């Protein structure tokens, strides 16, 4: 099937070394009118430097307030294939594990009812199916749910929780990220499918401070694995590493708290000054291991710059065991949401509310006891203020 529109500007985006979304849309355009008209609409937008999408409105599946993002073209007569171009978010499995059969199943449904275009995965973590019409939504949902799939979150709701692959492939994961993510998803089904918050709320679960899913910068609640106790050291493995790396330069000098020494071929750690950043463990995985008591740090408030500027998460629980049935954790989340619901303005994220009302007010509201470890960034905390003179002293 030939091209329906000339697309000189889009064609520029096919050049170069990197994969091109234009090439992928052109492949889909061999099969669907959605993709053919999408190319025409995009070319016009690039030419005019103007979007031709409208977003929102009443669209979705019965009973759910999320999972479908309504999108329409403002040029439906010119590009009828994209008059409706709704996005369907499908809740991804924890850790993004799929069998090829599962992927074929979803794509079979999507080829039947939609454009065939996907985004694997959206920044929240969902499998994102791009481009279908309003009439097909209930059928897509029925086919997905009959095979055990569910829609993800959207709107002013809990968004689909996501996690790193945790203990499934990483021996240094301090918590079972996949189990916790699944528990959060199941426990808060109502909060995910029926939006009732001031704005969105995201959970991301990382097994350790390496934070492979960047939860500290992207989740309203960041759950990051950590430990108590001393880092385990195998000196014979340290000796092996010394043959292939400069331990002084790559480990000791890069320790953010300067709590490590390497003398006479022996590695020592002052664990009382370690901030458990994971740098040394990640670099010397055979020689070092997290301490024996494993759990997580809970942080709150990060977000990307949408309504106001970006924020990073702030420690609210320095250490929690986080084991099934996670009652203490769910109780804390409930209190946080109540406080946010009570005081939050429309479209105000939890981190912005804390900034507006103050961290002490938040702690009182959710009945958390202030603790010096409730820091916003290493070696800084909200409770003590130092002058240059004090530091010199």
């Amino acid at each position, binding site marked *: 099937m030939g091209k329906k529109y000339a697309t000189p500007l889009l064609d520029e985006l096919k050049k170069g070394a990197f994969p091109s979304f234009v090439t992928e849309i052109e492949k889909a355009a061999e099969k669907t009118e959605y993709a053919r008209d999408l190319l025409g609409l995009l070319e016009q937008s690039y030419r005019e430097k103007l979007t031709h999408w409208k977003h*929102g409105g009443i669209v979705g599946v019965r009973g759910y307030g*999320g999972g479908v993002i309504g999108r329409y073209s403002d040029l439906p007569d010119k590009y009828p294939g994209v008059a409706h171009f709704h996005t369907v978010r499908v809740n991804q499995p924890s850790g993004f594990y799929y069998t090829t059969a599962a992927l074929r199943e979803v794509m079979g449904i999507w080829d039947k009812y939609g454009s065939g275009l996907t985004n694997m995965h959206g920044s929240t973590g969902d499998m994102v199916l791009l481009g279908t019409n309003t009439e097909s939504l209930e059928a897509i949902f029925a086919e997905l749910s009959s095979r055990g799939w569910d829609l993800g979150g959207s*709107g002013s709701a809990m968004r689909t929780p996501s996690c790193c692959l945790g203990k499934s492939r990483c021996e240094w994961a301090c918590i079972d990220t996949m189990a916790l993510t699944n528990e959060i998803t199941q426990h808060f089904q*109502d909060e995910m499918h*029926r939006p009732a918050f001031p704005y969105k709320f995201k959970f991301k679960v990382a097994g350790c401070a390496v934070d492979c899913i960047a939860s500290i910068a992207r989740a309203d609640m960041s759950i990051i694995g950590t430990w108590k106790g001393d880092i385990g050291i195998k000196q014979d493995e340290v000796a092996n590493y010394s043959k292939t790396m400069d331990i002084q330069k790559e480990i000791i000098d890069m320790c953010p708290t300067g709590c490590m020494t390497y003398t006479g071929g022996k590695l020592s750690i002052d664990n009382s000054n370690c901030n458990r950043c994971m740098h040394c463990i990640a670099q010397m995985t055979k020689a070092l291991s997290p301490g024996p008591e494993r759990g997580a740090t809970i942080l709150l408030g990060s977000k990307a710059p949408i309504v106001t500027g970006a924020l990073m998460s702030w420690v609210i629980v320095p250490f929690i065991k986080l084991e099934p049935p996670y009652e203490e954790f769910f109780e804390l989340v409930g209190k946080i949401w109540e406080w946010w619901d009570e005081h939050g303005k429309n479209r105000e994220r939890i981190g912005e509310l804390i900034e507006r009302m103050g961290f002490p007010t938040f702690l009182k509201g959710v009945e958390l006891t202030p603790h010096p470890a409730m820091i916003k960034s290493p070696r800084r905390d909200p409770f003590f203020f130092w002058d240059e003179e004090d530091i010199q002293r």
Partner: protein
Amino acid sequence: MDIESIKKEIVALIEESMGKKKLKPGDVFKKIVEIHPGATKDNAKAALRELMDAGTLVYSYKGGSYVEMPPK
């Protein structure tokens, strides 16, 4: 608390607000607790859920999530 009477209150509230002010689910819960002695947020949530499942009301999105009457 009788869920059926809360459902009626919610529908009346949404009908009255149409064309004036969009209500978020949280606004609906607060209003119901305010005007309905004995109603709780959980009652209101359960009632709204039933209305949504029945298609009596629908969610909409315009920079945030709102509750509306379905389009005619």
